């Protein structure tokens, strides 16, 4: 295609915590600095800065991007902020890729930040304002009301029981024990998950990732720069994104076709014909347990209705045939929305470079995928990385 090659050359992230003492700007600074330090670049080497952040109501800022701009290194530089709700973090990598692949920039700093704790008494309250102002908001809704409808339909259609999806929490929270930035690592049993409090059937408390504060950053570079500064560039091989209709009642809630479309766009760009064979590790979006399985199926990384079985057969374990969420995912590391999804890109980057420490998967994976899901359960974003 003659497209300009773009590499991830550095990554950094803050600890994910329930309530950070740092301001959003300080979180942004910390992650951006770590990412630049990791590839030994200075701010003066950065041509442009991209910030992703999902919901202004969390941090409590109008124009959150403007506020974050100098903390993220965007002072007197080309700076743009974008948002696609929960799918923002992975999209940040895509937007940064556009900056470099277009030929306009050689080095682009990509930062995703979310500080949810300022929203009192609980960040779920902010989700009321993602609903239709006339038809739905008067009902006083949040996300733990709408997502269970999707989960229920998905489980019924595929014949999954609570135990089948609970294994996702067990796996991811165990993986997170090895992640130094994680806040929800825990050794659990399937019974612990299904016996935890029912929030809204069939969602149990341990089926849900935790709201958090945090920031993640990656550095993208053109081929020329990447080859000069590192001997292990990780190439952005494919990008895809897709948005379904706003009217959630007219969607098939059991199958996220928009994720499939985003994946096909990325696979086409990366020249991937058989994802199940060609993708070695995956970081699909797991804000709720069932989402990991549902997303894996939509990403064509598992046949429809088969993901739970593969999970039970330990295929997705860190030492399995296709490690899934070796980081610990949102369920284990925590879920500061945009930062959590970019963390997935960072995790694939570290895994492919063999720099994931205790979380390192065996077998020298060559190709990895990160995916996120967002807006009103309607957005899919996919990035494929290759070493």
């Amino acid at each position, binding site marked *: 295609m003659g497209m300009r090659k773009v590499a991830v050359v550095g990554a950094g992230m803050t600890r994910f915590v329930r309530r950070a003492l740092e301001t959003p700007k300080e979180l942004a600074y910390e992650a951006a600095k770590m990412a630049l330090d990791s590839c030994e670049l200075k701010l003066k080497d950065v041509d442009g800065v991209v910030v992703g952040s999902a*919901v202004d109501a969390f941090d409590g*800022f109008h124009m959150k991007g403007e506020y974050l*701009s100098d903390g993220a290194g965007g002072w007197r530089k*080309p700076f743009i902020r974008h948002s696609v709700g929960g799918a923002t973090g992975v999209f940040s990598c895509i937007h940064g890729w556009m900056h470099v692949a277009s030929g306009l920039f050689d080095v682009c700093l990509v930062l995703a930040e979310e500080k949810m704790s300022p929203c009192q008494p609980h960040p779920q309250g902010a989700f009321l304002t993602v609903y239709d102002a006339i038809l739905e908001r008067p009902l006083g809704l949040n996300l733990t009301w709408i997502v269970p409808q999707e989960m229920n339909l998905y489980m019924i259609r595929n014949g999954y029981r609570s135990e089948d999806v609970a294994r996702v929490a067990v796996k991811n929270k165990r993986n997170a024990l090895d992640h130094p930035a994680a806040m929800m690592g825990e050794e659990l049993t399937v019974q612990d998950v299904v016996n935890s409090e029912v929030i809204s059937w069939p969602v149990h408390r341990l089926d849900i990732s935790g709201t958090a504060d945090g920031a993640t950053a990656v550095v993208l570079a053109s081929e020329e720069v990447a080859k000069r500064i590192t001997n292990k560039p990780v190439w952005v091989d494919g990008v895809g994104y897709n948005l379904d209709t706003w009217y959630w009642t007219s969607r098939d809630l059991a199958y996220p076709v928009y994720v499939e*479309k985003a994946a096909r766009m990325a696979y086409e760009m990366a020249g991937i014909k058989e994802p199940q064979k060609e993708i070695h590790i995956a970081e699909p979006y797991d804000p709720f347990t069932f989402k990991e399985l549902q997303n894996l199926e939509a990403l064509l990384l598992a046949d429809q209705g088969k993901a739970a079985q593969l999970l039970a057969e330990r295929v997705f374990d860190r030492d399995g045939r296709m490690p899934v969420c070796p980081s610990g995912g949102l369920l284990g590391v925590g879920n500061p929305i945009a930062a959590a999804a970019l963390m997935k890109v960072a995790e694939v980057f570290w895994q492919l470079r063999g720099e994931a420490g205790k979380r390192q998967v065996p077998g020298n994976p060559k190709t990895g995928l990160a995916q996120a899901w967002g807006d009103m359960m309607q957005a899919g974003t996919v990035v494929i990385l290759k070493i």
Partner: protein
Amino acid sequence: MLYEAASKAYQNAGLEPKDIDGFVNAGEDWTEGHSIADEITPDQLGAVKRPVFTVNGDAMQALISAAMHILTGQMNICLVASYSKASNIKSLANITVMAMDPVFNRPLEENPYFIAGLEMNRYLYETGTTREQCAQVVVKNKKNALWNPSAGHGISLSKEQVLDSPMISYPLSSLDISPHSDGAIVIILAAAERAKALCQKPIWIEGMGWCSDSPSLEKRAWGEAVYTQIAAEMAYKMAGISYPRKEIDLAEVSDEFSYKELQHLEALKLCRKGEAGFLVEEGALGISGELAVNPSGGCLGVGSLLDATGAQKVLEVALQLRGEAGQRQVPNAGVGLAQSWRGIPTTSGAVLILSNR
């Protein structure tokens, strides 16, 4: 509004939604009154189950993102959508306060016009520009707007009427301030080959630049628009422009407040620092002047469109370069500049250089 604007854009380009590879929206949650405002964008554009994203910035930044995506080679045709539904906002000032530092600035509940007044004062002080010269900008732009069928705030005023209008925050009087308007603008971009096949009169993007200065009120340059200066340098470099004043035939710049037009013209190097006020007095910035500035009527005449303002600027330059601007047509326009600013309290802006050749 978006449906109407998108339908017109599709018709104008001879395209259907299925021909578009990607869609970019511009907007902010809190001016929409909806968290994750991206989610309500696809349906009215015909963008369901298609690549869509939102830039939380000015429409010109969204357009730049779309242009970058086309330059990657992954997409051929992209649509940029933006709108303002300012009439839904009960108190914009209360929202703007929430864009300021929560510790240092918010407790003061600074009204945006208070900040604009401070900035105007500093600009007048540093450059020797006068209130009369700023008032002349208002007179010019509101008069231009009379010729623009899309503009809602055109009126014939005298300089004295502007100067005598109620003082809001010295030296900013009420007529120095752009009123807000509702409206939607949709722009379709295409890769060079496709554009030539699709369109008799494609308008080429020659240069793009954008920049953010300090978001902190305490640490920014108050007298000059550094963000526009840096953005312009980037855009001129890309477009190969060395003498902006000679090479640019018309400009649409942000005139959210009267003095901003003058300050931005100076940052764009379309005149020297302190010179813009004299140019507007001499009539050099009129539609038939040496450099036509805001022939559309600008924000003062069309109305400020929140984050869609940048798209209005690009639209006007495109119409002018196509020779489709009707009674407000600038004669012999070949190269145009569009510049945007995100308004108080930001220091973010973008610059585009467009041409019809």
